[in-house]
């Protein structure tokens, strides 16, 4: 392990994990969902909107509004604002930026929010307007969103490393089992490996249960000084380490790893923990193949050992490797940018012992990761954070 010269996140904490329960379709706007999340943050912290002096927001469906316009919409007077359009890496990035702002004294209490609506045509609109490379060189080929891109990545991964559909299925089936304990999960019925294998193909080798369901929802948390949390009597989450990387390994012909692989040593060095010390892991799971890659890139096994690692472990809440304990996006739903926050917010609940029916016993330290932006042929953004509860 190498040394890190990065400043630790001393005396900065996260608090008030918020989830606005998802719905498949919503006639409300993204602003409505973000507004509900802000209100829950304020209520949960016992503060007023005036106490929020930093605001960080992510949304695919807020139309013309960025963070600045939303301050007026929600009556926030802040001295620090950020809009993070990093898709599935938005929560990790929000946490990193907000923590440093609080640490430097640029803000006292930062509200980090991701909220998206899902009208019947929202998803297609997002696909059509995703990025220039996507517009020029992916969408015209009939790719239904990321399905085709991940199909190309998954097929290559399967051929190269011997992963089988059953291995991906094991991840999805375990997450469904976890989701059945989460009242907010949109998926309510059990999923068997037989059902997974028999599902209809979407873009070979991606089948129905490899795909997330787009939905509406919001997720949020607060970042503040340790002293502020204490004065508000809020259970606080410590940030042991974070990493973030974009457009890594651009010369790999097909994506077989994410940017985590570049920074993973620093992640554990900064946190002062080893992968074995983690009580649970929340990966970004827009497709099971990406979770499998993260098992490798985040140091739980070596590159190419993902399939074996999956075969050896039980990924349910009470299993040998509790993973995506809320059910993940695959079974809870993908609420746009909220999907980036899902794992982070669940990790906060886990280390605070507030996860209720999905609680991993004695969870003290956990990892949450993010991945996003299939700009052209691969996901560009990656990030991860190791979080710890008060007892850790």
């Amino acid at each position, binding site marked *: 392990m190498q040394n890190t010269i990065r400043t630790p996140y001393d005396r900065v904490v996260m608090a008030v994990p918020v989830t606005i329960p998802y719905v498949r379709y919503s006639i409300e706007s993204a602003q409505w969902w973000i507004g509900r999340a802000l209100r829950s943050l304020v209520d949960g912290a016992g503060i007023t909107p005036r106490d929020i002096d930093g605001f960080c927001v992510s949304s695919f469906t807020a139309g013309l509004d960025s963070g600045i316009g939303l301050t007026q919409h929600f009556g926030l007077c802040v001295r620090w604002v950020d809009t993070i359009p990093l898709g599935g890496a938005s929560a990790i990035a929000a946490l990193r930026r907000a923590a440093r702002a609080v640490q430097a004294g640029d803000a006292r209490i930062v509200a980090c929010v991701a909220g998206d609506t899902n009208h019947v045509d929202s998803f297609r609109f997002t696909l059509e307007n995703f990025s220039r490379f996507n517009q020029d060189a992916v969408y015209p080929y009939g790719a239904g969103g990321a399905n085709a891109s991940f199909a190309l990545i998954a097929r290559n991964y399967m051929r190269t490393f011997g992963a089988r559909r059953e291995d991906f299925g094991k991840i999805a089936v375990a997450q469904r089992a976890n989701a059945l304990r989460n009242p907010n999960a949109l998926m309510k019925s059990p999923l068997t490996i037989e059902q997974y294998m028999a599902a*209809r*193909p979407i873009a070979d080798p991606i089948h129905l249960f490899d795909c997330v369901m787009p939905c509406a929802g919001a997720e949020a948390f607060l970042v503040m000084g340790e002293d502020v949390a204490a004065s508000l009597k809020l259970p606080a989450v410590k940030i042991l380490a974070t990493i973030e990387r974009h457009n890594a390994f651009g010369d790999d*012909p097909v994506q077989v790893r994410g940017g985590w692989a570049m920074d993973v040593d620093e992640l554990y060095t900064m946190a002062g923990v080893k992968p074995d010390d983690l009580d649970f892991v929340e990966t970004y799971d827009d497709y099971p193949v990406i979770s499998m890659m993260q098992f490798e890139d985040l140091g739980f096994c070596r590159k190419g050992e993902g399939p074996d690692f999956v075969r050896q472990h039980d990924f349910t809440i009470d299993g040998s490797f509790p993973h995506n304990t809320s059910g993940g996006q695959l079974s809870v739903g993908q609420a746009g940018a909220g999907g980036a926050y899902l794992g982070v917010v669940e990790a906060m609940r886990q280390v605070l012992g507030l996860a209720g029916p999905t609680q991993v016993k004695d969870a003290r330290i956990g990892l949450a990761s993010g991945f996003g932006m299939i700009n052209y042929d691969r996901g560009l953004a990656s990030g991860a954070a190791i979080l710890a509860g008060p007892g850790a």
Partner: protein
Amino acid sequence: MIEPIAKPRRKNPLARTRLPTSPPHPRSRKSHGLTRAAAEGRFMLQRCGACGAFSYPARDACPACLSADLAFVDAPRRGTLLSETTLHVPADVHFRERAPWRVGLVAMDCGPRLVTHLHADCEEGRPVVMSFQLDKSGQAVAFAYPERETPNMTDDRQWREMTADPKFRRVLVTNGRSVVGQEVVTALKSAGASILFVGVAEPWKPFRGEEALRALEGVQIVPLDIGDEKSVMDLAADIGGKVDILVNTSEHVRAGGLLDRQGTSVVRDEIDQSYLGFVHLAQAFGPAMRARGADGVNSAAAWVNILSVYALANWPAFGAYSASQAACLSLSHCLRAELRPGGVKVVNAFAGPLDTEWFQTVPPPKVAPRVLASAIVSALKRGLEDIYVGDVAEDVRQRLAANPKAVERELGA
């Protein structure tokens, strides 16, 4: 291996005609460098003038060295298919009704990776050859096909969406009296066109080549005088719903410019025959073709104009004729835009002087009508939009790209 497509049966007149839909068409401005390549059947990628790296998708700065010197240049077409997928549930209506649809990721030997449509005979891990094609929205898309020819290669379902192959299609050739018209009919017949409607004005007047033309199986001589609006409308009323490819072979060539002609009667004839003839045809046949752009194996597919290359730069020796051709060229771009919702291509074949009686006094090189006809069929099979036929046309194209002012001065010398 691909099964040969079957000849379509007669259409059930009670069945609804499936309406055309377009694949997603928005593109960045820079990306139209690829549209130009596809229109001419070239395979071009951006290459950095500073460091030599090829890049894709279209960019405004080199990802290797950040230079802005990123010209589109002809690039090596060979690559390897890294991974493929079959889309069963595309998000977009156009592809949804064409699913399953195969796409892949190709690593080019020259560097970039291309997401691409796939010919059915492409195999993962094997070499492929790339082209840019104009899809049904008229925009450029990458297409990969096997390095070596495979049986029934051009019958591939996805390839046929990119082209206007005459096989099993019904064609209207507007002037069967001319040598060019007759050669076009013969070439389309060899390419597998099923019915060839051949327009002849005043059919009771005999003409050279008539017997051979009538003897060709599938040829139907139809009365057509494109300068006469009623004649065009009458024919469209008869056959407008079954013209899949229209080739306008009508020609009206007269020498001379402005000052040495007295009055406007010759000019008016040129405009009536060339420009207004085009207008009549477009108004009579265009709407039905546009509506039939997705009508099965023999959907409406292409409209072909034969234009003088002097549409692009006036040749004063045939100055008024050049101007009438320029008018037709301009109108062809309007027609192209209006036929695009139907996925119907407008092919412009630019030719230098033809080896026909109207260019009798012009020295060689001249374009043999047979060469022009075969170039048109090739353009339809390859799905091209702009072709330059013969040495003079190619010469003018290159000189215009280099310096249009030089072309003007030299043609007028």
